[in-house]
């Protein structure tokens, strides 16, 4: 059986994590291809609906990337994102979408290497956790 | 607290007194040591010149054996060279992707595997971080008086992994020595290299380095070490250096746990002081030994 490759959707803030992903690229820091990035202008723009939709569409993990507190390009969008994530985590957890599948991380524009580490770590973690729920059903059915 | 114990080869041979003193000290402090079963050589400095992988595999095997003992995570290592080799593996398996798999592949036949869950601790780290001067002071029978000690750290417990002290200006021994009533000899040679195994290959270089240390310690009643190699270089070559330099640079050299245990009231025999090569009569007198 081929190894399980989790699908991760990244919602990355244009000013920090998306730029960090660009930097990881220019620095040729390789990381698992499991993550696919959607460009947002700010982590504070990520509507909980997007995360729910991603999981319902079969994502095994969702990673929101924002600026470190205090560094938000829009002053405090990331702080709002943090509260939304805290709230949404509680709902997802209740239905077996573990906290380890839904990450918010602060990754500054200069932290290309951290982006690499976070994606590697998350991919590893998801491999340990195995298939996300909706994929499990699909595999079973 | 409980520690796993890795004495290493030196402590079975040339540095047997370090082994004796370390065990006596840990016992006096109320900590238990569990010697890692079936431990082997850390690779010393020889392995690396033969194979880089071998130089990692040897210490990695020791760590893997230690992991069998699941409850105790800290490995106490008195020898700085062993400490460095073991530490190197602990650090590298975290930072070098694929290394852990490579090592475990080597261990397949032996049916052991390494996860990276143990922590390598130098004896000095354990004494200064886990115990500290207050606990030491509490066990002192009689404090030394007018005893000036030059704390000598050497390289390998400080560099390149600055875990518990500043490699350029180490100080971790000072509060411990003060706790037993010793005065700290003012010098800045504590973190300098003793020449290590250059003593065998490029003796002139090593003699110069040891000479610098002994010179710096003039005025001290003893130099205290935490490494068999440092101890050996400082005690075994001081006569030769004195002769070469035309200056009496002889001094007492002993291991840190030896000195601490003496303050606890243990006998010379208890701490293996009879095995040391250069304990001066004057030191014996000042330290209150008869």
């Amino acid at each position, binding site marked *: 059986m081929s190894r399980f490759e989790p699908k991760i959707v990244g919602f990355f803030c244009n000013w920090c994590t998306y730029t960090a992903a660009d930097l990881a690229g220019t620095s040729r820091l390789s990381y698992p291809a499991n993550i696919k990035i959607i460009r947002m202008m700010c982590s504070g723009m990520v509507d909980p609906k997007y995360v729910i939709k991603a999981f319902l569409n079969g994502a095994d993990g969702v990673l929101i990337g924002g600026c470190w507190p205090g560094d938000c390009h829009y002053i405090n969008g990331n702080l709002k994102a943090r509260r939304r994530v805290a709230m949404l985590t509680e709902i997802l957890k209740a239905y077996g979408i573990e906290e380890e599948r839904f990450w918010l991380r602060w990754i500054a524009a200069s932290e290309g290497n951290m982006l690499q580490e976070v994606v590697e770590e998350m991919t590893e973690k998801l491999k340990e956790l195995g298939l996300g729920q909706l994929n499990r*059903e699909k595999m079973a059915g | 607290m409980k520690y796993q114990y890795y004495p290493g080869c030196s402590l079975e041979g040339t540095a047997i007194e370090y082994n004796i003193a370390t065990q006596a000290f840990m016992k006096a402090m109320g900590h238990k040591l569990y010697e890692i079963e079936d431990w082997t050589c850390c690779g010393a400095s020889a392995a690396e010149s033969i194979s880089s992988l071998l130089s990692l595999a040897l210490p990695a095997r020791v760590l893997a054996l230690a992991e069998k003992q699941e409850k105790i995570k800290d490995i106490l290592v008195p020898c700085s060279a062993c400490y460095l080799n073991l530490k190197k593996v602990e650090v590298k398996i975290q930072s070098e992707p694929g290394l852990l798999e490579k090592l475990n592949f080597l261990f397949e036949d032996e049916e052991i595997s390494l996860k990276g869950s143990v922590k390598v601790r130098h004896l000095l780290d354990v004494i200064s971080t886990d115990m500290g001067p207050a606990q030491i002071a509490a066990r002192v029978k009689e404090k030394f008086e007018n005893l000036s000690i030059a704390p000598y750290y050497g390289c390998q417990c400080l560099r390149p992994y600055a875990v518990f002290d500043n490699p350029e200006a180490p100080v971790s021994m000072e509060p411990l020595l003060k706790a037993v009533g010793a005065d700290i000899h003012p010098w800045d040679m504590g973190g300098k290299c003793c020449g290590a195994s250059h003593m065998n290959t490029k003796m002139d270089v090593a003699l110069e380095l040891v000479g610098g240390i002994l010179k710096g310690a003039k005025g001290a009643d003893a130099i205290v070490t935490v490494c068999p190699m440092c101890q050996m270089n400082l005690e075994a070559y001081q006569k030769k250096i004195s002769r070469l330099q035309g200056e009496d640079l002889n001094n007492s050299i002993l291991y840190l746990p030896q000195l601490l245990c003496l303050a606890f009231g243990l006998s010379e025999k208890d701490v293996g002081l009879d095995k040391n090569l250069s304990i001066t009569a004057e030191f014996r007198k000042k330290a209150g030994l008869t």
Partner: protein
Amino acid sequence: MADFKKLPFSKGELNTKLADFFKDMLEKKTVDALLAPMVQPKKGVMQTLVTHPSHVEAIDIFAPVVPVNAAKLASSLTSNPSGRKVAMVLRSCEIRALIELVKLKQAHLEDVLLIGMDCLGRYENQDFFKFQEQGNTSEDFIENALAGNTAFNDTDISAACKICEFPVADNVDLRLCIIAAGSGELLIESLTEKGEKALDSSDLSNAGAPKERQNAVQQLTEARINARDLLFKEHRETVNSIDALENEFAKCINCYNCRVACPVCYCKECVFVTDTFRHNGDQYMSWADSRGTLKMPADTIFFHLTRMAHIGLFCVGCGQCSSACPNDINLMPIFRTIAQKTQDRFDYQAGRSVDEPQPLAVFHDDEFIEVTGQVK
């Protein structure tokens, strides 16, 4: 400090006495209007708005039925205020929802004299009709319920009421107390200056604080909390995956009645009925392509999960969602278990206080560090 006045009544006279009390209030112009449950000319009991004293006769406040959560009605009356003072007689769940709506600028309490009542539960609408048809009265219900018996024939009060920790309404101006009020007596308690003023202008005589009340309320609350915890535990054990959730919603037809009945689902138009969810044909096709099958109507679980995200923090547990579902989906425990988790995370309780900001409307620098676990 709470002041009590007593409203004595002989058997069968409770509603008459209450009607007198409110009639007096309207006559004295303490308020200009009254919103309270009243017997309807045809059938049933509904919240009814009355502006003339002569029309309060039909009042039946303690009728064990809540056809709609009246927070929504209060919102209709006050979001574009009439400028007239209105007394509203509401239950705890309605008041707590109303407080959330006030925070969301969907209702205003300036011109409202808020009157809470002890609530012993409600029957589902159909059950209440039967209850009424068989000649039972509110007084009968109170008498039995106070004795610990809420059941009537083979039906009982709604599941939501059985696990409701708030039999007594807080944040009100006046409170109509029946729990431990003494037989043949109803106590009216004033809790605010506004309430005190209204009560003082009535002709009722003073009463001391009922000694047993606190104890009785506590006992009732504890019993309900126990029932709640038991239900939550069972629910969480069974409905713990998306699969199980789909099972719960298997009968859902996307009618969105739950959200219409929900007092805190405050949007004018739910996002699920806006353009955002009006998909193109090829989108449906592509979903079917990739998933193999596509249940229609689609987005069912998406809708319910999103609704949890939107109102989980405001849910007051009134159970109107369950009552409103045409296919008898038991939404109440689903939403209440989620609400407990999300509200706890923010140390928030829907309807506890008007002054408590809603969790997602505010934010601070150093909080929820554990979400990212990162410290610079």
